């Protein structure tokens, strides 16, 4: 019984330490913004950062080599057939690109911020595949709450033990984004 209590306390302590570590992770520039799924939402990320007077480079189809010198990677998940068509790639190729990018970010210890701003229009189907892929390596999530009506992001953040910031409208995502870098 005493052993059980001690183990429980130890696990709680470890969880607390991990969460704290994630939250206190340092976010700084240079910032690279990219898409996961080629939706046009990624362009709004640039506008949100601009609102906070934050410099960032947006490469919609960023590759592992684009991470050179980058200190924070912001990924905007959302699937768009139109976007993929315009980029001339398939969903599988896009997923592979994202996986390689995220793998490299992890190797370089670059923190990844998940920024989901498309609401319900960027949920379900292939959008969810990209969301899950990005969430798996994210250290912070900012989500327009309409996209979290079914609690997917709450669940993913809990699983990943990272902070989830929900905002009611797209323009309001600028504030938590700004705070991260201040």
């Amino acid at each position, binding site marked *: 019984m005493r052993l059980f209590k001690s183990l429980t306390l130890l696990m709680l302590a470890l969880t607390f330490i991990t969460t704290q570590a994630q939250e206190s992770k340092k976010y700084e520039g240079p910032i690279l913004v990219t898409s996961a799924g080629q939706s046009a939402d990624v362009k709004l990320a640039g506008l949100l950062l601009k609102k906070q007077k934050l410099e960032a480079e947006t490469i919609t189809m960023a590759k592992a080599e684009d991470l050179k010198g980058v200190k924070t990677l912001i990924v905007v998940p959302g699937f768009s057939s*139109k976007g993929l068509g315009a980029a001339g790639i398939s*969903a599988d190729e896009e997923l592979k690109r994202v996986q390689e990018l995220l793998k490299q970010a992890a190797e370089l210890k670059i923190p990844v911020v998940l920024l989901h701003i498309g609401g319900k229009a960027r949920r379900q189907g*292939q959008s969810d595949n990209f969301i899950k892929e990005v969430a798996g390596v994210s250290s912070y999530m900012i989500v327009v709450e*309409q996209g979290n009506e079914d609690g997917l992001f709450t669940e993913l953040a809990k699983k990943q033990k990272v902070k989830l910031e929900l905002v009611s409208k797209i*323009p309001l995502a600028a504030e938590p984004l700004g705070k991260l870098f201040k």
Partner: protein
Amino acid sequence: MKNTAFRRMVHLGIIFISLHVVLFSQQEVLEPAVGKNGMVSTAHPLATETALRILKEGGNAIDAAVAAAFAIGVVEPDGSGLGGGGCMTIYLKDLNETHYINYYQKAPGLVDEIEYSRKIDKLNAKTALVPGTTAGLITALENYGTLDLSSVTKDAVRYAANGFEIDNTLAGIILDNLEVLQQYKETSDIFLPDGFPLMEGDTLKQSKLANTLKVIAAEGKEGFYDCYIATQIVNAINEAGNKFSLEDLKNYNVKVTDALKGTYRGYEIFSANAPQSGATIIQTMNMLEEIDFKELGHFTESAEVLHLMSEVFLRSYADRYFNVGDPDFSELPLELLTSKSFAKERFLTIDKSKTGEAGYRKTPEGFSIEKEEQGHTTHISIIDKDGNMVSLTQTLGTFFGCGFSVEGILFNSSYANFSSKAEVNKMGAGRQPRSTIAPTIILKDGKPFMCLGTPGGGRIIATLSEIMVNVIDFGMNAEEANQAPRFYCQVNDDFLNLEGRISEPIRAELENKGHHLKLYEDFDLFFGGAQFIIVDWDNHEYFGTADKRRGGMALGY
């Protein structure tokens, strides 16, 4: 003993739940709307309600279609509207006549003087052609309707003035087309207030559009083509780089002809005249007649069938590319294209075991066909209590057209539908570019059988053909036929495009036959948003369906 009984109960419970899930989901998803006196299917519930109200109040199918068309331009502003054009196929039951109204957009007189670069000017005000929607809808109402213009524009005005709730489809399309919407202040103020897009659940108001609709309701065609609105259009669009004139607007004329006729396994098909794509629909169906579907099965179950159908599409799209354009400016071999003998000849060129090498994507002259702009569009299907039918497709070219708006009118982007390589579809003053839109009506034994159409740019011909095969060859009900998986293939595309529900074994076989596959969502808007009605005339029952790929609604009464 106790354990065995428990297990049996669990098993029975699982079977019961599984059956319930299957049956319930099938009932929920695969049952069409049913009506005995009228049926409407459009891409938005508000437009459907508008048309149904008109039918219930005694209007005929044409009144309802015109009302729905004005309304859909407001509540689905990405797909069509006053700044675009379209066409409709009309069937008048008592007279046993079919008519075709072409009100597609036309090039302005000074189109040659527009400083247009295909690379830079893909989607801006320079790509707008002279719109025909207002003239077309009013012509239909005057020729075949029974109500006055103010009655059929009332709901459109209300939706524009009071606003309506943005649905999931529109929210997604706004997000997908940010760049187009960001270009011009009048447009971005409507869809991107404060620079950020309106989302699902937000209210979209279009007060300037409401005013324009009121002027049209009061003054008719002149309210759009020959008054202060026309002057505003010309001044603003020319300032943005186009070359409209007041004469272009004043002289816009609608073309009323017979619909183009073909047959498929004894059913009579009436579809769009050139430069729209009824001829290609008829050619495609003639070629598909060569396939023994009963023997070979459905394309979701047989890679051979899917291969054959995609090879048919490759050929009919290629023939369209070189032979279909504006008939007022070119001699078109439409009789040949729609003949059974030509279809047979073309079908015999198909290799059943494999697709062609990469070279099959090349034209006989050896150059690659440029990729046409993918128009997006909307469709309305309506039948009234007397069996009159209207199949109407209208468009802005691409989603939100060129993004330019004035007086609340969002303009089309149809300049890009002209071809720089195919002579028959060359750009020129007063010309209409080719379009894939093909509103279609089908009769069986001289009685109404189907009223169908779809948006979806290049996919329109493939999607409509697949639906006709689903219904005529496989006896699917309207909902089943609409929600069945889709595919598309054409000469100017490097891929055989498939919805995700086409099974892996079929995909593998297709790859073995040399196809390059591109997979989409299980239900993907890319493949259109078909709205159609199947008619059981002998029992006077109408079955309507709205495509779940596009948030539409079918309602009957």
